[in-house]
Structure formats: C-alpha cells, structure tokens
C-alpha cells in the first residue's frame, strides 16, 4: 500500500504522457491510423535537426565532463569542510538548474551581437563576430550549455571522487609506484565507470534541453526540440502533431538507451566505491 503514491506519480507523470505520445505518433491530423509519421523522420530536414542536436549534446557532454571532473577533483583535494568546497558545491547546485530562458537572456546580454562583453571588446578593436554570429551556431550553443553542464558534472562526480581513499595512494607509493602508476592502475580504472556514466547523464541533459535554445534562437527548427515545437504550432496551416509525437518517441528511445547504459555503469561504480 505504501507504494501507491509512487505508482500514482509515475503513472500520471511518466507513463501516461509516454502512452499519449506513443498512440499519437501512429495517427494523422484527421485521426486515421498511419505509419507515415515514422517514415517522415527520414526526411532530410528532420535528420539535420537530429544531427545538430546529437552534435551539441555529445560535445557539450564530453567537454563538460572533463572540465567538471577537473574542477571536482580540485575541490576534493581541499578541506572537506572548508569554505571552498561549500562555496563550489552550492554554486554548482544553483548553476546546474540555471539552464533555460534566464541563461539565454544572460548569454544575449553579455555575448549577443549587442551584448556588453561584445561591445567592450569591439571598442578595443577585438571583433569576436568577425566571421559571423557563432553564438547562434553549434559552437555558441555548446558554450552556453557548458554553463549548466559543468556544474552538473561537479555535483554528480563528487561522490565518486570522495570514494577514493587516501590509503590507496599511500599503498601505491609504499610499493614504489609513481603518481602516473596511481592514476593509470588504481584511480583511473576505479573512476572510469562513474566518469562515463556521468558523461552519459550530461548527454541526456543537453539532448532534452529546450528552453535555452528556444529563447536564444527564436526561429528555425535547427535542433530537434525546436523542430517538435515548430510542428505543433503554425499560422500557415502546417502543423503535423503526429510527426511531432513520432520525434518525441524517438527522443525517448535515445534517452532510454543512454540512461540504461548510465544505470549499468553506476552499478559497476557502486560495487567498487562505497
């Protein structure tokens, strides 16, 4: 009986919306059964949106994971109750949730074509947009995404680093091992599953992000979440709700695969680091 609230919650907020999407993806706008929504995914403009989304998600996940891991390591080597650690973890906690409209506006106000950093540099003869407005292209989107990817990595990777015991390093040294040996044969293999798992989590985080790009790019379905939005609203009679739901279903499948791998890797991590 105690599990009823849990199942009610999962049913209402996870299973029901998924079921609506699955059913909706098999129907046309007029309500007749069709498989066309899935063959339409193969259209060049949809493939392009998917590719763009996969690129920004992968790159921002890998860069975010590496930078976040280094930052987390720097925090761990300090005093566990020190001011640095408390400051960084609480800042990361806030910034990891900062993605969305607020982050997009912050990016436009600083690095947009009329942003104050852009103007400040321009007044000193440095034009960061000499080769075009890259802030709206994948490099710019990746840069903006890193503002929530790095803090998230710090948060999820800290527990793994905390699991490394100083005794292991001492044991390596007393056996004549160098720092390289310690990282190569002890800490590296121990941290690898957690690091890869966290990278996958970051990928899923970026892949499903919508509000940040939607507020930054107000036109064009160049990323898959924007494409779904475009297919749902139109003043020119071009809505395709079935195709939008088929795309949402494809996204769910990708995220389920990624998150299953993440769970497997987490299981491996928790076996070693307790």
């Amino acid at each position, binding site marked *: 009986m105690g599990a009823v609230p849990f199942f009610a919650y999962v049913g209402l907020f996870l299973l029901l919306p998924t079921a609506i999407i699955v059913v909706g993806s098999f129907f046309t706008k007029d309500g007749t059964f069709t498989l066309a929504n899935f063959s339409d995914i193969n259209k060049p*403009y949809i493939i392009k949106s998917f590719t763009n989304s996969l690129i920004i998600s992968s790159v921002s996940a890998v860069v975010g994971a590496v930078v976040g891991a280094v930052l987390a390591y720097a925090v761990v080597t300090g005093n566990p109750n020190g001011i640095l650690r408390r400051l960084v973890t609480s800042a990361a906690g806030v910034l990891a949730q900062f993605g969305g409209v607020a982050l997009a506006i912050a990016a436009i106000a600083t690095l947009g*074509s*009329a942003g104050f950093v852009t103007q400040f540099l321009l007044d000193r003869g440095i034009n960061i*947009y000499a080769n075009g*407005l890259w802030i709206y292209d994948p490099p710019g989107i990746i840069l903006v995404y890193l503002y929530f990817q790095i803090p998230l990595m710090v948060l999820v990777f800290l527990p793994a680093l905390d699991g490394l015991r100083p005794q292991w390093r001492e044991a390596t040294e007393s056996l004549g091992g160098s720092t390289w040996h310690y990282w190569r044969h002890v800490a590296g293999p121990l941290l690898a599953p957690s690091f890869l798992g966290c990278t996958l989590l970051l990928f899923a985080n970026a892949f499903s992000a919508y509000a940040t790009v939607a507020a930054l790019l107000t036109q064009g379905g160049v990323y898959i979440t924007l494409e779904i939005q475009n297919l749902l609203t139109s003043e*020119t009679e071009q809505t395709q709700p079935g195709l939008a739901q088929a795309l949402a279903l494809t996204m769910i499948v990708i995220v389920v695969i990624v998150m299953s791998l993440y769970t497997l890797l987490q299981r491996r991590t928790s076996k070693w680091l307790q």
Partner: protein
Amino acid sequence: MKLGSLSRRLGLAAMAILFVAACGSSSTAAGATNWATTTSASAGGGMAALVAAAKAEGQLNVIALPPDWADYGDLISGFTAKYGIPINSVNPNGSSQQEVDAFDGTPNAPDVVDVGQAVALNNTAKFAPYMVSTWGDIPAGAKEPTGLWFNDYGGYMGIGYDSSKVPTITAVSDLLGAAFKGKVALSGDPTKSNQGLNGVIMAGIASGGTLDDVSKGVAFFHSLKQAGNYVPVVCTAATVKAGQTPVCFEWDYLSASHGKDVSTWKIFVPTTAIIGGYYSQAINKAAPHPAAARLWEEYLYSDAGQNFWLKGGARPVRMAAMTSAGTINATYAAALPQVPGTPQVPTGAQTAAASSYVVANWSQAVS
C-alpha cells in the same frame, strides 16, 4: 456516473447559453429591421436608420486592435465621438486566430474582426455578409463577392534597417555583403508565421523566382547564412531597440513603428519584388450588436476612417479611388515609403505551396 452527470450539466449550460442568446437576438430584432441579416445600409432603410439602431444597442465589441497599430487609437475614439457609442476593446495584442476563437455566443463576443487572409478564408462560415456604402471602391480581388470579408488595409514586404549601423540598401542582394555580417533577420519563423513566409517569398522574387516558386527565397537565406549575415532571431520592437536585429524583413507599415525607438530607421521596398499583404474586415454572424457592427464598418470605409489608417502608415483599400477623387489626405500619403512598380499578391494556393516547401527545406538552409 460522474461523467454522465457532468455531460448533463454541460448540456444544461449549453441550453442556458442558447436561451440567453435567443433572448438577446429577439430583443435587438424588435425594431423594424433585423440588422443581423441585413447586407447593406440602404437595404435596412438607409444610414439614418442604421445610426439609430446602433445607438439603441448602445455599444460595440472589438478585439485585437492595438491603439498604435494602423492608428486604431484614433479610429476608436473618433467613432465614439461621432456616434456616442462606447467601444469595448479587449485583448489588443491578440492574433487573428484568437479573434475568431472569441466568437463564443456570449454578449461579450467581438462584433467585428480584423484578420489576416488565411484566417478570413478559413472562417467564412462564421461571418455575416455585408457591403459598405463605398463597396464599389474596393477592388474586385480584395473582397469576397457577397461581403463575407473585405480587405481593409495593407502594405508591402520591405526591409527595415538602422541606417546608422549598415549602408543604404538599394537591392535585396546587398544584404549578402560584408557590411551586413550578423545583422539580417526575419519578423517571424517562415515555417509557421505568415509575415516570415512573405519575407522569404519576397527574397525569392528579388532573386529571380516567382510567386509559384519560393525555392530561390530559401536559397537566398541559405547564402545569407553561408555569408554569416543571417540572425536566427525574430525581429520585434525589443530586438530592434536593443540593436540585435539592425536589418529586418517585415511589412512596411509595421516596420515604420520602429522609428519611435531608432531615429535612423529606414525602410527599403525592392521595386522588382513588391509583395502586398492585406488584412480583412468581417462581421461576426452572431454579433451581440449587429447594427453597431455594421455602422463601425461604414465608419472604417468612410473617407475619415480610411485616412486614419493612412495616418498609421497602412495603405487603405480605397486608396486608389480616393486618390482619383482627391479625398485622400495628401500629407499622410506623402509620408508613405515610395513604391514604384507593380505589387504582386500571392493567392491562398501559392501561399500554401510556398509554406510546404519552406517547412521541408528551411532547417537545412539556415543551419
């Protein structure tokens, strides 16, 4: 059980609404003329009878008319001053579709609407036919023959730009130059906005395309993107004021309003690609104030009404007739951007075909 009682209650509510609506229409139809089905002022006994009936109704409901859009502020106060009939103006920033969606059968429903072409064509079943006394001045292609809708004002797709940030524009192809890096935007996503789509159609015709072939327009924006000049942001008063979008494809009469914020704002309309777009008036079939609705249309299509639209930078539909009759306000007419050349207006079918092409090709073109 629950559902059953709910649907019964809804049924009762619907009946109540119908009953109220029936009462409403029977009381307004008490006079000599039932204005709700009258298709012209003369058929209902002349202008004096229409004014008297409208005054008896006592008010008029309008929707989605921003006071600074095509000078609706002056039109609304002018109507009330002339006939003593107060106007209830709701949701001034609503869209065309929202206007028609507000036809809910209550006494608060809009009596008249001012909608875009697509919405007018899709909702003729909800409109009442009416022909204003100046009907003959409206060109044949600009009205539904029985008066279900009739164009009111419009303008041309232009390129608005801040002349302090970019050089003077003399051709659409100028925008591909290095001086326009990261500066050119559309006033709507062409895959879903009518204004955005017309911007692409205009660019296409300027690049050698036709109203039937928008592919050159999409190709133009692809080149613009390749050159690093395209900005994927929708132009609004805010982005223009902030300097994010110094060059915008938009309707010339809406672009003119940016002059308030940016004094160096100019508008260029290419002589080889003049794309016209008009809004339309229509009367709600179930208007709560049928006589006032018709009197409002008479007022809008009078010389005074047409000149207010002109004052707001829009081209009123009777402009050609009024220019030959000498009743157009010459000062306002001279303030419009000069457009030498023949305007082209895409038909509903051409717009639909262009829209399908843009949806299928836009993402690859601009990413």
